[in-house]
């Protein structure tokens, strides 16, 4: 399991790096799906199978398909690949990379003194559902309203 965790983590990192460096948007999307699936595996190794399943279905499945549809609608083609290459030069990357590196260093610095091992205990659907429909039922309702709002506004915005 430990090995699986590190392995999946490495896959997730590498594919994410590929996402932000890719010029071809469809390739980038495929890398993103890979990254998300790897994160789903990480979830599984951390004892959250329900979250892993949702990650695979909703994130890697539904949302990414939505991206794919939009990319198809925009029909960017070969031209956009060249454009992307011209837009992502090393000079442009420099300052954001430094910024992110500082932020990362700070985060790792904070986490450094925090040493605790996880004794992986599987927390299944039952516990999660009991919480969702128990104390968090209001949050679920709010989430559904949010989704409804998203649905309506996406319909309105995408309409001609």
């Amino acid at each position, binding site marked *: 399991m430990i090995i699986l*965790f590190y392995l999946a983590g490495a896959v997730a990192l590498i594919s994410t790096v590929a996402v932000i460096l890719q010029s071809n948007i469809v390739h980038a999307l495929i890398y993103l799906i890979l990254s998300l699936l790897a994160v789903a595996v990480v979830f599984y190794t951390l004892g959250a199978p329900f*979250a892993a399943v949702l990650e695979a279905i909703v994130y890697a499945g539904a949302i990414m398909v939505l*991206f794919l549809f939009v990319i198809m609608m925009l029909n960017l083609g070969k031209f956009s690949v060249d454009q992307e290459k011209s837009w992502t030069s090393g000079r442009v990357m420099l300052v954001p990379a430094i910024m*992110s590196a500082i932020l990362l260093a700070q985060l*790792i610095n904070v986490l450094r003194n925090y040493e605790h*091992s*996880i004794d*992986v205990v599987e927390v299944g659907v039952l516990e999660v559902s009991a*919480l969702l429909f128990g104390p968090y039922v209001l949050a679920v309702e709010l989430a559904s309203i949010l989704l409804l709002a998203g649905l309506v506004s996406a319909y309105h*915005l995408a309409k001609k």
Partner: protein
Amino acid sequence: MASIPVEHGLILAALLFALGLIGVLTRRNIVFVLMSLEVMLNASGLAFIVAASRWGHAEGQVMFLMILTLAAAEVAVGLGLIIQMYRRFHTVDINVLSQMKG
């Protein structure tokens, strides 16, 4: 069962978050920006899952579900906006959108 150091999970989340941030900051294509945002959201969800397993609780997963819902709604609206933008400006370059210049 085997044990994983909790800071490793959190560092993984931080790395993913930083990578997503670099994507948001560097890409000019707005579809890439949105994808990088997804990466960042996903990283924060991962941090919650790690925390949940640290305590063996289900609350973290509930929070992950909320983030998932948020991401879904955000992507739907964001993609709708991208389509609108492409219709208006015939480009996906976010530098074109500088109407807020003071």
